[in-house]
């Protein structure tokens, strides 16, 4: 019997839930990366549950930690402009491609800007994706100024009257203040042409409590409006995203579950929360 169902059985009075079981539940929560604080809150709330429908009550407790902010992607008036940011190796470029593919399939016209001018072959990676999906990719020189690439992309998106404009950026560790400054410059420069509707922070589901710091600092410099939680198809449950929502109120908007362009979907609260305890 899974721990979760055991727990529910306990509440229904068909099973005993010993202190050892509570400890195990705590460990289970901790191992999903929601962090010690949220795990504690959940346990306290769970101990009070005496409802007939225990399962729903429990999911309710976890769901409450999600922010009240809308989890719907923001769409702009004319060209919806989306900037994708994050630390190295979380899957930004892949997420940009998946987003583009999602919107393309929904009948939107899409332009991409290859703003990762730093990592070797990142531009090529996005170009290859652009070919596959059939969307235009605006790129500049290797090691060029990412802001100028983004600017060119924005111009192009505006002139071609595209529905969606997505900017890929180079991965950067949030504690590098010069790189964070570069990121806000990209945003400022693009906003001279198109208002940025959405800044998506890509968080790797395997990330531990450091994800909270990433979200905090990225928000300080570019006002993150949503989270893309990637690599949820692995054994990691991505509980840190819940911790981010609970603490910073940044909603999870997209979920990545594989390497193909279709392995991507808008966030769905119920299945995410269930997954945390699966």
């Amino acid at each position, binding site marked *: 019997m899974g721990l979760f169902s055991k727990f529910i059985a306990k509440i229904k009075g068909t099973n005993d839930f010993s202190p050892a079981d509570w400890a195990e539940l705590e460990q289970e929560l901790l191992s999903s990366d929601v962090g010690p604080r949220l795990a504690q809150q959940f346990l306290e709330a769970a101990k009070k549950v005496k409802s007939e429908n225990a399962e729903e009550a429990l999911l309710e407790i976890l769901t409450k930690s999600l922010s009240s902010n809308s989890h719907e992607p923001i769409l702009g008036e004319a060209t919806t402009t989306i900037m994708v940011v994050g630390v190295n190796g979380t899957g930004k470029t892949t997420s940009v491609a998946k987003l583009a593919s999602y919107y393309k399939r929904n009948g939107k016209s899409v332009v991409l800007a290859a703003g990762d001018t730093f*990592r*070797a072959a990142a531009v*090529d990676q996005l170009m290859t994706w652009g070919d*596959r999906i059939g969307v235009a990719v605006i790129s500049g020189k290797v090691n060029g100024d990412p802001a100028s690439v983004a600017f060119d992309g924005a111009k192009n998106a505006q002139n071609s009257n595209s529905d969606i404009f997505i900017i890929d950026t180079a991965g950067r*560790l949030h504690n590098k203040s010069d790189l964070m400054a570069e990121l806000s410059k990209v945003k400022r420069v693009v906003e001279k042409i198109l208002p940025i509707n959405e800044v998506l922070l890509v968080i790797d589901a395997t990330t*531990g*409590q450091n994800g909270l710091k990433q979200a905090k600092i990225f928000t300080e410099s570019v006002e993150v409006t949503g989270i893309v939680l990637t690599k949820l198809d692995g054994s990691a449950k991505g509980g840190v995203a819940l911790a981010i929502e609970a603490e910073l109120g940044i909603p999870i908007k997209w979920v990545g579950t594989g390497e193909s362009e279709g392995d991507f979907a808008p966030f769905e609260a119920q299945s995410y929360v269930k997954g945390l305890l699966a």
Partner: protein
Amino acid sequence: MFESLTSRFSGAFSSLRAKGKISTSDIESTCQEIRQALLESDVALSVVEDFIADVHEKSLAALPTLQAGTNQANAIFEIVNASLVEILGGQARRVRFAKNPPTVIMLAGLQGAGKTTLAGKLAKFYADQGNTPLLVASDLQRPNAVTQLQVVGESVNVPVFAPEPGNAKTSGIYGGNPVKVAKAGVEFAKSKLYNIVIVDTAGRLGVDEDLMKQASEIRDAINPNEILFVVDAMIGQDAVKTSQAFLEGVGFDGVVLTKLDGDARGGAALSISSMTKRPIMFASTGEKPHEFDIFYPDRMASRILGLGDVATLAEQAKKAFDTDTSAKLEAKFASGEDFTLEDFLEQLQAMSKMGNMSKLLGMLPGAGQIKKQIENFDEGEIVRTKAIVQSMTPSERRDPKLLNGSRRARIALGSGRKVSDVNNLVDRFTAAQKMMKQVRNGATPTGMPPGMAMPAMPKVNAPVTKKKKSKSGNPAKRAQEEGQ
């Protein structure tokens, strides 16, 4: 990294140090604090429990042997330190070289852990030691991972075996099969007498059975001497499951931690080496090819405990200051010559060779307390100071007293700085020079000015000790100077 862990540890120990005599309950509470600190740092619960049990047991056993009046807290501190070193893998282990070259190193890990970047760093690391490495591009999964490896290889001057384009649209003679590419790469290395082969593979999830099977097929095809599991230092509790999955799926001999230059709390490091009993062999600390080193468990333990990492600092200094320069400076100092701006320039150049200043300063003991200053250290300051010195004529560098107003104005113009910047540098240099003279004459310098021997560091008050030198070739001038 490890900063918050460090500050939690120092908190726990400072309360312990405040006590003269340590009781059993003090040990209990210290253990409790360490437990919390480790949990908050993403260390797996089972690892935390084992660690605490170990420290607890050893501390209690040591308690009766502690003499009154001695520093008991230090004895406990030593126990924690030793346990940390042990959990981090004890001794540093080097890659085992094959008896018959080439030595084959296979990289494996999750997507985005940093395998391709690491492949380049590893290749550079071995090439710098006089080896002839070959990189093999077996990541045919991610679009243009092959191109990335080619670019990386080019930047470190190491050839890349990449017969497959790896963008899924076209495929080469191996039909897009990474196993065949890996095998052919090793064969190629044998025939061309490369002595190290580094095989980059696609990122894969521990739960992806097909890809894990593919990884084990690559392993069986190339029979690597070392399989390195590459893992992101920011990984959370999943470290346990994922490393277990890789251990069972492909097996690995050592761990490489990447992105250690972030502010992750490093729980992964502790969990993985403890759970898998595999040592962490390398640590990667930046995006540039040289930002990479052998992982020393004892040094990492000192860093976690806030003792600094002087050993690494000294090594980097040794690398940067070639023996000739140091010997020359030493001879100058011994013969009573004055330290000149020329010597100073050489030092600055050596310092920029050592790399990122804030990283170096972070290795000093107690660096945690000046963390903010270190983070804000302006790396450009060294460049600007160098520019000022370089704008001087040789004779001015040897004798700063020549620097009158118009010369200073010229230097300011030449270096693109303000005259006040030039004045500032000259003032601090003169003060440092004077102090060195005092040192040589046996007097204790009164309060080391912040920039001695390194007037270029106005923003950080860290005691970076450099050799103090002094000179003036001309005996007459020297007599005159000494008379001042």
